[in-house]
């Protein structure tokens, strides 16, 4: 019985290869986009973890000089003698030809396990390491270096962060030419009891809590959340396809189900078989999806890595490693998605009365009650979105708001279309018009899911497009303000910087300092900049808020400026005091600072030097006629041998900044296009499956005196009307999404709020695209209709199907 039932059920998929393809491909695409994004996120997270773990700074306290300079390793010996469990480390930069790496010297014999990213348990590995003959590098870093220029033999180690060369401490001291010196001591987490106080043994050292370097992970969280949200959107769009394909397959087999039930197959068994079928299809599709997902991830990862480097300074490998957990999660999601999509169908099969007459067209029937329920749910979600928008804060809330908005708007689409078509039908006088409108209205439930998918994709495109374009417009204007100086030079040492300044001063209109020091602000990594009192800043600096005489007060040291990120994060208002170590002053202005995840403070150069006497003062901005730059560049290069990378003109900085910007949004753009593609595919499959079911509805109209060509034209017009209405509706939804992204998500994620600009040109292009997609999707079934031989149309009347 079960075997017979199975073959009866499977026969359907064999007879409808297109439908099987739709189902599998839809689910595969959905899984692909989702798991692709997940693979990227996992890769990035693994990179951060590696960086954090290798530093040992994640969990370990360190001891270092209060001024951050190197100190003698005798302090280490003293501490060990006193019973302290510490291990010496020396860190510095090492030049390897054109590039440089972070050289990190460790003592593998005393270093806590957490700080030791290289496995040296084999004595055959340990001995050469201790002798300073071997160092370890991440293979990807290794690939970028010329191995002949390395001062020692290098072995690859995958757990290392990028750009870090691990060697024995002795080797590090030799290579950095710092014999007997260390940069810090790693403190074991568990120390023996009754130790003498640190001050007594090593009075010059200060103990520091785990450094917030792993903050790179928290800084980038918002970026990854963004990606995840996109992946989820794509997945949801894909599920729409799966839902309609499964729904159709169930509906078309209704008679089969009934026959099987009538022949004695228990309903539970039938549902079990169907569930097994769904599982099988989901696993197949999930497998394909994982493959596609890996491809998507591999294609996008370089851009993502570049973005993360440019925006957050986070190093992420450009190569993808796939983890079993990722594959399992992807398959799990495909399964969950397939069952979510099939739940309704399975439920209906379970409750299918054995005897009721087969009603194959019921699937297409406008169930007004269903639409009312849908409209009610949509209203609820939109109200919820409104409440969240008004009350809640936080990035998660922002995304929940976005989800409510999009889902609510999507759910509202079919009831809205249905109402609109009913209204239009009532006002139309032409008999054909009435029929077209009424008939289209009946199609709305069948096409609803595909239209919702199209609407979501369009809205997401408008939303993200508006955000990116608004951002670009703001950003370029802002760059012009921020990069008012024509030429930027950085010395390699303090002496060199001072000498360059002396050289430049007589030739330039002004040489302005670019000095900065790292300084935790409002509990997060931040930085302090010096800003000179000069028209360059007075006239151009992008101030969002400013108190009276803002520049005078910064110049005379009675006020400071903060960037928008810090302003929003800290909640400081103009006039509130900001505390820096050793100084506090009121905030007199707030400036926009796009693309920077950190909080920032600006104060006068005098204050800066007083507060951070040790901070290197290497950078300078030069006001000069652009024509004079090449000569100046040559002069500096001749005198100091300064590499080009340290002399940048305004145009180059702008180019670079815009490049980072474009790459940042390349990923959103790519996901956007993919989502639109998935939606187009959903539309095509919906039109195809509907077309197959439409013959019985069109045949009577044809028989009553319409030519096939005319019918085909009407079908095409119908698709165009639906797509146009959907696109029209997607516009306000997309703009609402853009507003949420600009005014809520960006503020929460990055700390800046952007003005919204409107780009009707983009809308027109998207509208045309939607129309094109719908017509393209409709044209195939319509052509088939136009060429259907009368004999086939007649079959509708001759047989009971």
């Amino acid at each position, binding site marked *: 019985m079960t075997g017979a039932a199975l073959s009866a059920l499977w026969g359907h998929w064999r007879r409808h290869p297109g439908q099987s393809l739709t189902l599998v491909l839809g689910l595969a695409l959905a899984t692909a986009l989702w798991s692709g994004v997940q693979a990227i996120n996992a890769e990035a997270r693994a990179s951060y973890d590696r960086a954090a773990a290798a530093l040992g700074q994640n969990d370990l306290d360190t001891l270092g000089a209060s001024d951050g300079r190197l100190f003698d390793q005798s302090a280490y010996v003293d501490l060990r003698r006193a019973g302290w469990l510490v291990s010496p480390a020396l860190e510095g930069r090492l030049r390897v030809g054109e590039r440089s790496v972070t050289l990190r010297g460790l003592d593998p014999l005393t270093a806590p396990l957490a700080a030791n990213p290289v496995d040296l348990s084999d004595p055959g590995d340990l001995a050469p390491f201790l002798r300073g003959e071997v160092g370890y590098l991440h293979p990807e870093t290794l690939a970028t270096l010329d191995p002949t220029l390395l001062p020692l033999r290098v072995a690859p180690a995958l757990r290392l962060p990028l750009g870090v060369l691990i060697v024995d401490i002795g080797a590090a001291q030799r290579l950095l030419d710092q014999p007997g010196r260390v940069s810090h001591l790693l403190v074991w987490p568990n120390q023996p009891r009754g130790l003498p106080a640190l001050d007594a043994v090593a009075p010059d050292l200060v103990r520091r809590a785990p450094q917030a370097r792993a903050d790179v992970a928290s800084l980038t969280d918002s970026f990854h959340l963004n990606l995840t949200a996109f992946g989820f959107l794509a997945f949801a769009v894909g599920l729409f396809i799966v839902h309609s394909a499964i729904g159709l397959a169930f509906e078309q087999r209704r008679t089969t189900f009934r026959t099987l039930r009538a022949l004695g197959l228990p309903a539970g068994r039938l549902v079990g078989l169907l569930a097994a079928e769904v599982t099988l299809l989901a696993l197949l599709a999930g497998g394909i999806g994982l493959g596609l997902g890996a491809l998507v991830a591999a294609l996008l990862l370089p851009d993502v890595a570049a973005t993360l480097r440019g925006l957050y300074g986070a190093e992420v490998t450009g190569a993808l490693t796939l983890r079993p957990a990722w594959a399992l999660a992807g398959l799990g999601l495909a399964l969950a998605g397939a069952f979510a999509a099939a739940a309704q169908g399975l439920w209906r099969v379970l409750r299918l009365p054995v005897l009721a007459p087969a009603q194959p*067209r019921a699937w297409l*029937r406008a169930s007004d009650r269903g639409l009312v329920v849908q409209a009610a749910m949509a209203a609820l979600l939109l109200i919820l979105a409104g409440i969240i928008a008004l009350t809640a804060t936080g990035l998660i809330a922002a995304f929940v708001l976005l989800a409510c908005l999009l889902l609510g708007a999507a759910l509202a689409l079919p009831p809205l279309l249905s109402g609109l078509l009913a209204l239009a039908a009532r006002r139309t006088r032409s*008999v*054909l018009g*009435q*029929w077209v409108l*009424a*008939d289209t*209205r*009946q199609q709305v439930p069948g096409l609803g899911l595909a239209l919702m998918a199209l609407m979501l994709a369009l809205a997401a495109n408008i939303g993200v497009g508006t955000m990116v374009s608004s951002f670009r417009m703001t950003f370029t204007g802002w760059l012009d303000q921020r990069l008012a100086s024509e030429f930027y030079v950085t010395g390699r040492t303090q002496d060199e910087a001072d000498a360059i300044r002396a050289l430049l001063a007589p030739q330039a209109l002004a040489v302005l300092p670019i000095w900065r020091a790292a300084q935790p602000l409002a509990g997060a990594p931040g930085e302090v900049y010096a800003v000179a009192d000069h028209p360059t800043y007075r006239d151009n600096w992008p101030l969002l808020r400013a108190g009276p005489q803002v520049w005078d007060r910064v110049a005379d040291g009675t006020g400071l400026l903060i960037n928008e990120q810090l302003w929003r994060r800290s909640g400081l208002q103009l006039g509130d005091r900001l505390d820096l170590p050793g100084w506090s002053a009121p905030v007199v202005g707030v400036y926009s600072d796009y693309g920077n995840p950190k909080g920032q403070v600006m104060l006068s150069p005098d204050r800066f030097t007083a507060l951070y006497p040790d901070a290197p003062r290497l950078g300078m901005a030069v006001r000069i006629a652009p024509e004079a730059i090449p000569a100046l560049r040559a002069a500096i290069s001749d005198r100091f041998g300064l590499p080009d990378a340290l002399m940048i003109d305004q145009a180059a900085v702008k180019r670079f900044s815009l490049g980072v910007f474009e790459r940042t949004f390349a990923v959103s753009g790519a996901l956007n296009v993919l989502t639109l593609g998935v939606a187009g595919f959903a539309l095509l499959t919906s039109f195809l499956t509907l077309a197959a079911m439409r013959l*019985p*509805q069109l*045949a*009577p*109209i*044809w*028989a*009553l*005196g*319409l*030519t*096939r*060509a*005319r019918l085909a034209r009407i079908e095409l017009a119908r698709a165009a009307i639906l797509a146009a209405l959907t696109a029209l509706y997607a516009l306000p939804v997309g703009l609402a999404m853009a507003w949420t992204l600009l005014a809520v998500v960006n503020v929460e994620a990055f700390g800046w709020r952007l003005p919204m600009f409107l780009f009707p040109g983009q809308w027109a292009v998207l509208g045309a695209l939607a129309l094109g997609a719908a017509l393209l999707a409709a044209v195939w079934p319509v052509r088939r209709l136009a060429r259907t031989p*009368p*004999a086939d*149309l*007649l079959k*509708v*009347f*001759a047989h*009971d199907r």
Partner: protein
Amino acid sequence: MLVALTGVEKTYASADGPQRVLQGVDLTLDAGRSLALTGESGSGKSTLLHLVGGLDVPDAGRVMVGGQDLSRLDDAGRARHRREGVGIVFQQFNLIPSLDVAANLSFQARLAGRHDPAWSARLLDRLGLTGLAGRYPEQLSGGQQQRVAIGRALAARPPLILADEPTGNLDEATGDAVLDLLLDLVRDTGTALLMVTHSTRLAARLDARAHLSRGRLA
């Protein structure tokens, strides 16, 4: 002479080779007369009806309706013939599910540009559908649906009604009642009727009978 078929042949392609359904059929029907077409299942009754209705064209021979050779018309011409020259009542799949009874009934007449509201209202009344005018086909019984179909065929006042087992799906009592109505209306309006039926009892009630067997009329 309203309908004249001469030497009509029709062959369908099927899984086991071409199937010669009609092999030289001659048939005539005068205006205002009724003719019952009987024959075994698969003998080609529906096929013949479809040819007269301009739904398909014969492979050979001529189908003249109202003095027009349907084979010589193009797609648009045959569509016009279906719209204005005949009213067709099928066994099923007849009504337009998205339109209510009143709209279904007047649909063809309005397509043909011959909508007469008074006549439509009278038809509704005669068919006993007045109270159901606002309902949709799925809310009607089989007999009610078939009555709407008859009304639609008559609403444009075509000279010829083609009916393909119009009561085949109905129980005997309902079928008889529907048929009585059809015959009454046809008589009252002077419309010709070509009706396919399995039942000799029903066939006996029409002016003439023709039996289709082995692709020919007997």
